[in-house]
């Protein structure tokens, strides 16, 4: 199945980059990875693009158009990011702002519920997040990224999309063995989707 892996982390050599690369391999030959930092993605929605968004028209920015095309062809979407201030980092939030646009992710109608999912091609959404904080700290401070992936995404994908959540807490305190074990766990979970 066609899969799209979206990586949002500045360190292109670090643990998350390795994880995203291994995840892409585990998803099979039809998987594509978008390394947003390496691609130089601009997360700030410009004034003209915002104007188009309000008018219910899709983006024109060439990178956003290309990413939107990959998104509308994908059956599995996997997000890989590190938690910042209780939710996704700005880079990934900007990617959602710019690429999850009208006619790409949803269509607007006059009748209730007004917003209709357009990414009905997406069967599964997977979130892979690393946290500096412990599991309990994350529970206390709130996990906006998880809510974005497992709840907000449903406005775009529909209610039948399956979501799965693969977190690694207290990243700084994990041993290399624990990290390797986590990578194996991710590969195993994603291998079933290929």
């Amino acid at each position, binding site marked *: 199945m066609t899969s799209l892996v979206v990586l949002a982390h500045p360190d292109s050599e670090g643990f998350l980059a390795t994880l995203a690369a291994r995840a892409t391999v585990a998803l099979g030959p039809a998987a594509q990875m978008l390394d947003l930092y390496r691609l130089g993605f601009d997360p700030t929605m410009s*004034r003209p693009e915002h104007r188009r968004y309000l008018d219910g028209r899709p983006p024109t920015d060439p990178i956003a158009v290309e990413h939107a095309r990959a998104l509308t062809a994908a059956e599995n979407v996997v997000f890989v990011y590190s938690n910042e*201030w209780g939710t996704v980092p700005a880079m990934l*939030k900007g990617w959602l*702002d710019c690429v999850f646009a009208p006619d790409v992710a949803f269509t607007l109608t006059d009748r209730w519920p007004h917003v209709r999912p357009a990414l009905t091609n997406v069967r599964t959404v997977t979130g892979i997040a690393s946290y500096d904080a412990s599991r309990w700290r994350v529970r206390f401070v709130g996990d906006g990224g998880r*809510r974005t992936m497992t709840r*907000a995404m449903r406005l775009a994908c529909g209610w039948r999309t399956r979501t799965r959540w693969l977190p690694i807490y207290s990243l700084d305190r994990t041993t290399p063995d624990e990290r390797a074990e986590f990578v194996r766990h991710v590969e195993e979970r994603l291998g079933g989707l290929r």
Partner: protein
Amino acid sequence: MRHLLPRPPLGTKALVVYAHPDPTSFTAAARDRAVAALERRGAAVEVLDLYGEGFDPISVGVDPTLLHHRRLLRWCNTLVLVYPTWWSAQPAILKGWFDRVWTVEGGPMRVPNVRRLVILTSHGSGWLTNLLEGRVGKRTVGRALRSVCHPLARTTWRACYHMDRNSFADRERFLARLDAL
């Protein structure tokens, strides 16, 4: 329990952080109304227009802009965030402002000087949709950011819903309520 405590009045030093691509937007009107309300109370007000100054939300490292923003953040006792809600959270430029300005070397910055957080936002969809989406923006400020502010810091959340189809009168009512913030 917190709700039984008297609400602290808007402070004397307010930092207004505004993030919207369009200077003629409703969000800009909300910012102007809030700034006017603060000034009427005699507060010193500083406004940061993130789109206007071309804030870079993703760079790694420290630059003079960042230091200036951190100085303002340590100076204020009321922080007012004015933004449109996109995908139930802050626009990337404002999320990047949290990621960069509030994170110092060695982790999150402590700002015990901030005693009041005010969020003024707009939603394309309704209250229920935002609830089902997880109210990510509200939790990011009310929980994650508030955890490094003053221990008794209070959050005020004002949202204008159904921007896709509400009337001029609805918006005017929202703006009028800001006078009594």
